[in-house]
């Protein structure tokens, strides 16, 4: 059983909306609500949800790119020490900051167009370690080769590279400090399918080679399924389901997950699933519905759902399959597994 590497506890994040009206108070919008989970060493935990569900904010808060409003992220270091990652002391900051890195969605805006690729990749290294110039060069060349970049092209500027190659640069930058955790924020969403597959495979290889732990943020369930060990589903700032990938795709325990799964178009004209189509739109996070926030769109909603917020708790699927639905164990929800296994 792998040990947790990150323990996220009751993470909350509020944004103050900028009020366009004069003299009226700005209302804080809750983007993250009591997020708790353990990230196990060496696993890939995917975070899925619609736009506005707070998954990107979660990724940024976990590695302290954004200040969380409350809650804590405990990082278990290499030598088994637990440190509060959101409030690192000066010495710890220097020591552990580099252990969690990030890869962004947009390979265009995530690379500074005014720096050479070499400078981009080496920046985290130079910032965090006292290394000689020669060593830096060796390291960068080494890592570039590993992610499939021609080391001879490193003196070029990012604009000389295509989207897929830029994403490789971003991966190289994230890898250079030898982090233990990488947060991939929609890291392959902006790429064309054929390139997307290249990058997914690359991430997979790196994990096998270097034992990196991923938090993989994505809206694309098909991609998620090919790469993850566990899946967390977010809806309006809350985790509504958390399960291992098999268990999730086979037996989803939240109506929202079921709807998400059935909405994904299957690239197979012969499979005509009768799908569950959610009515209506994602509610406004500034004015969330009462009770279970999914109830206005939920086909199974009852009076209880309208009034009481369900807790994220264990389900009949076992200890490691959590769901925040009052009727998690009563509903017979459809996964996507059987359909294909039958085929």
């Amino acid at each position: 059983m792998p040990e947790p590497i990150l323990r996220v506890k009751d993470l909350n994040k509020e944004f103050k909306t900028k009020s366009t009206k004069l003299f009226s108070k700005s209302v804080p919008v809750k983007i993250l609500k009591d997020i708790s989970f353990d990230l196990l060493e060496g696993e890939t935990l995917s975070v899925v949800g619609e736009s506005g569900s707070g998954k990107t904010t979660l990724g940024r808060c976990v590695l302290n790119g954004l200040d969380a409003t409350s809650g804590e992220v405990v990082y278990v270091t290499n030598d088994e020490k637990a440190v509060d990652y959101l409030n690192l002391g000066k010495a710890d900051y220097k020591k552990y900051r580099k252990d969690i890195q990030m890869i962004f969605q947009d390979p265009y805006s995530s690379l500074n167009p005014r720096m050479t690729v070499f400078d981009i990749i080496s920046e985290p290294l130079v910032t965090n370690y006292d290394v000689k110039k020669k060593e830096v060069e060796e390291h960068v060349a080494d890592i570039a080769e590993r992610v499939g970049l021609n080391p001879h092209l490193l003196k070029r500027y990012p604009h000389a590279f295509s989207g897929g190659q830029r994403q490789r640069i971003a991966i190289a930058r994230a890898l250079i400090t030898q982090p233990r955790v990488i947060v991939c924020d929609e890291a392959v969403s902006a790429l064309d399918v054929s390139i997307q597959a290249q990058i997914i495979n690359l991430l997979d290889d790196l994990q096998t080679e270097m034992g990196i732990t991923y938090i993989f943020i994505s809206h694309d369930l098909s991609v998620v399924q090919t790469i993850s060990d566990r899946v967390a589903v977010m809806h309006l700032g809350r985790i509504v389901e958390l399960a291992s990938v098999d268990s999730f795709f086979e037996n989803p325990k939240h109506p929202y997950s079921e709807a998400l799964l059935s909405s994904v178009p299957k690239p197979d004209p012969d499979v005509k699933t009768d799908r569950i189509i959610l009515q209506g739109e994602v509610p406004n996070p500034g004015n969330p519905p009462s009770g279970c926030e999914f109830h206005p769109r939920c086909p199974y909603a009852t009076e209880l759902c309208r009034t009481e917020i369900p807790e994220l708790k264990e389900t009949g699927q076992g200890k490691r399959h959590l769901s925040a639905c009052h009727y998690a164990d009563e509903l017979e929800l459809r996964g996507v597994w059987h359909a294909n296994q039958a085929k």
Partner: protein
Amino acid sequence: MKQMRANKRSTEQPLLSVEDLKVTIQMDNAVLKAVDGVSFTIEKGKTLGLVGESGCGKSLTSRSIMSLNPKECETTGEILFNSSLDQKLKGLNILDLDPTGKKIRSIRGKKISMIFQEPMTALSPLYTIGNQIMENILLHRTKNKKEAKQIALEMLRKVGISDEEKRFNDYPHEFSGGMRQRVMIAIALACNPELLIADEPTTALDVTIQAQVLELMKSLQDELGMAILLVTHDLGVIAEICDEVAVMYLGEIVEKAPVHEIFNQPKHPYTKGLINSMPILGTGKQRLEPIEGTVPLAINMSHKCGFYDRCTHRIQGICDVQAVPETQVSSNHSVRCFLYNEHEEDEQNA
């Protein structure tokens, strides 16, 4: 082979036939062939999917049909629109028409309509939804404002906007993304077009909303019987609603077949590559098979297969020197690849 096609044409004329469409853009010091000799037909009431990765020329192809390409593009070829309702348009090449003239305007919005990827920017923020729907109706259907409003309200109901009387006077920014795309569809279908061109209509939407919009398009097609040209990069969406699929790569259609055949018996190495590199939901954690390399530039291309550098089946001395002909592997399945030249002969021999 040619005979067969001719036969088909004589029995029933397709609603739209595009022959050898070329779109070129003059760059600073080169000519970019964005669309290079594309031909396809769309039958009445059917859905053709045009699929390809970004930059393959699918958007320009779709816009050529309405003669909406930017001024900087030079568009040549033949686009015949055989309206069953308007005999006057028979035999007219849309590309020959003055792109701002009366004739093309009587087709746009009435016979052929279009929906776009970004419903927010495609709608004007300055006018109410009602105003923007009525505009179309007043132009093509009726001059009576009251009647136009009734039609507009009916359309809004049809695309699933409840409370349409009130929503009629709302502005686009008061709608969510999915709702805006519904409004776009309402505008496009307000005049019962015979052909709807949908350019990445769901790309900007969440999966749940995408499912809603696709469902809506399907049901409206059943109800109104228009043909659809669906432009997308998502094979999943294609499988969902298309009858026939054309796969584009680097400005050319490399494979064209009914949707079942594309997914079950893809012929072109690129099509195969695309399907293999797509993660398919429900198959578990698996290793993908990506296409190696990247898309080359369509500038100053020599006579070779555009996929040559990335192809695992390439034949040196053939694929890199000769222009690739289109090969018919069955009556409705064609592919642009040397691998199937023999097949053709075999078939003919047999």
